[in-house]
């Protein structure tokens, strides 16, 4: 077994009631799991199960109330640059910058720590099928294209881990399928470790090596499920009986947890 890249140990998060009468809200209770190098792991659960909160805790955006996150970074020399690329549900592009300038934005923030690797970014543009749109402004791009630029930006500085918070949740079904396939291609050629938050069962099954299934009240891990569907996966995969079995199993599991 290879080494974990992210280790989540007994994480809990309690939101204190703002008034005296309001009860404390337990968003996450004793969450533990490991993510291994190069793995595609999804956090799947209904809204309110704390999966987005968990992702923000892992990336150190918000503090946990208990437990510990360990990040193992073998690349000692690049300790100072962010270890995560983060893709949000909305693209979070700066509207006054072109697509290329948005993708290069991270280098501007860490100019003294890492030189802009334009070659790498250009390659990512091609990989994301965005060539020709380098000089377009976000307003001129469709929702799917904006999200692709956001992925390129997250990978521009070559972080070890890509965290994605329902990145395709706001897209239409067709664009969503398209971007799922694109994401698999990008994952395949960049060999990143991906932690992917979604509430779509079929999306999680299609993309993941492993699914951490979460339930609500309090947010907790229901099951850590391996998806043993061979890769490369394509649209035909979604019609296979094994795919259907996983979807069914997960649907029943999520229903029973309510």
């Amino acid at each position: 077994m290879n080494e974990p890249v992210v280790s989540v140990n007994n994480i809990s998060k309690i939101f204190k009631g703002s008034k005296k009468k309001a009860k404390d809200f337990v968003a996450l209770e004793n969450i533990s799991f490991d993510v291994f190098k190069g793995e595609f792991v999804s956090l799947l659960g209904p809204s309110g199960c704390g999966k987005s909160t968990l992702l923000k805790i892992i990336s150190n955006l918000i503090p946990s109330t208990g437990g510990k996150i360990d990040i193992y970074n073998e690349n000692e020399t690049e300790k100072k640059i962010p270890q995560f690329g983060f893709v949000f549900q909305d693209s979070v592009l700066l509207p006054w910058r072109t697509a290329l300038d948005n993708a290069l934005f991270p280098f501007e923030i860490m100019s003294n720590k890492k030189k802009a690797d334009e070659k790498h970014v250009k390659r990512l543009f091609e990989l994301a099928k965005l060539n020709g749109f380098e000089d377009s402004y976000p307003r001129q791009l469709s929702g799917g294209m904006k999200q692709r630029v956001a992925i390129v930006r997250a990978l521009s500085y070559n972080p070890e881990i890509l965290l994605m918070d329902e990145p395709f949740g706001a897209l239409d079904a067709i664009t969503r399928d398209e971007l799922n396939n694109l994401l698999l291609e990008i994952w395949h050629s960049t060999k990143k470790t991906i932690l992917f938050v979604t509430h779509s069962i079929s999306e999680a099954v299609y993309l993941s090596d492993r699914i951490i299934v979460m339930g609500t009240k309090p947010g907790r891990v229901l099951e850590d499920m391996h998806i043993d569907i061979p890769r490369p996966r394509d649209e035909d995969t979604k019609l296979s009986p094994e795919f259907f079995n996983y979807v069914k199993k997960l649907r029943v599991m999520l229903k029973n947890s309510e």
Partner: protein
Amino acid sequence: MKRKLLIIILSILFLILFIGFWQGYKVLNEVPSFILPSPQEVGEEFISLLLNGTFLEEGWVTLYTILIGFVIGSSLGFISGYFAAKSKKFEELIMPYMLLIQATPKVSLIPLFVIWFGLGMPSKLLLIVLSAFFPVMVNTILGLRSVPENYEYLLTILGANERQRVIKLQLPMATPVIFAGLKVAMVQSVIGAIVSEWMAGERGLGYLLVYGSSQYNANLLIASIFATAFLGLALYWVIEFFERRLLFWHESKLAFKEEI
């Protein structure tokens, strides 16, 4: 393009209608010229005042007073807005006083300014500064505070420091809202300048209005009103010009969207 042409034609039609109504009203009701001069008389007066330099000289006095007052007032508004947006304590400290000043009709302060500073520049400037200050301050606070959370998260992930946050994210994000404040401030500054020239001026377009009124010179009065309106419009356009330049990326600038 067709739409633009239609708008131009419509506004010219409207102007003709307005002048026709004016002329017709005067002729039908036999209004004497000392009460309502004809459009032609006003036009001639306007041109002669323009040619003999009165409008340029008095307009210049009003213009530079507005510009100095506007720059000082909006800069102070921006700076205090910035600090209020950054520090809740500072905001709570200054806000009651700001609201008090804003709630006071500023015209009522002019007689006091005249006692303190006499007639002329300082009194006028002070009024314009007070007029321009508030809209810019309020909008700066609003603009800086309304950066969506995910953008702040993104900069946290990238390890941005406070300076980078302000320069690369918050200020550009706030620019549309700040410009909205600058436009209001400019309109208020023009009003402030004219009103203060009525009461405390010895020069300027506002003074020309008072002078025309005291002489029962409706011709001069109406021509001066037009001059004032043109000045106000021109200054508003200056702000719009810079806004278009800076906010080419913003949804509200649809003209640009058509070009691309």
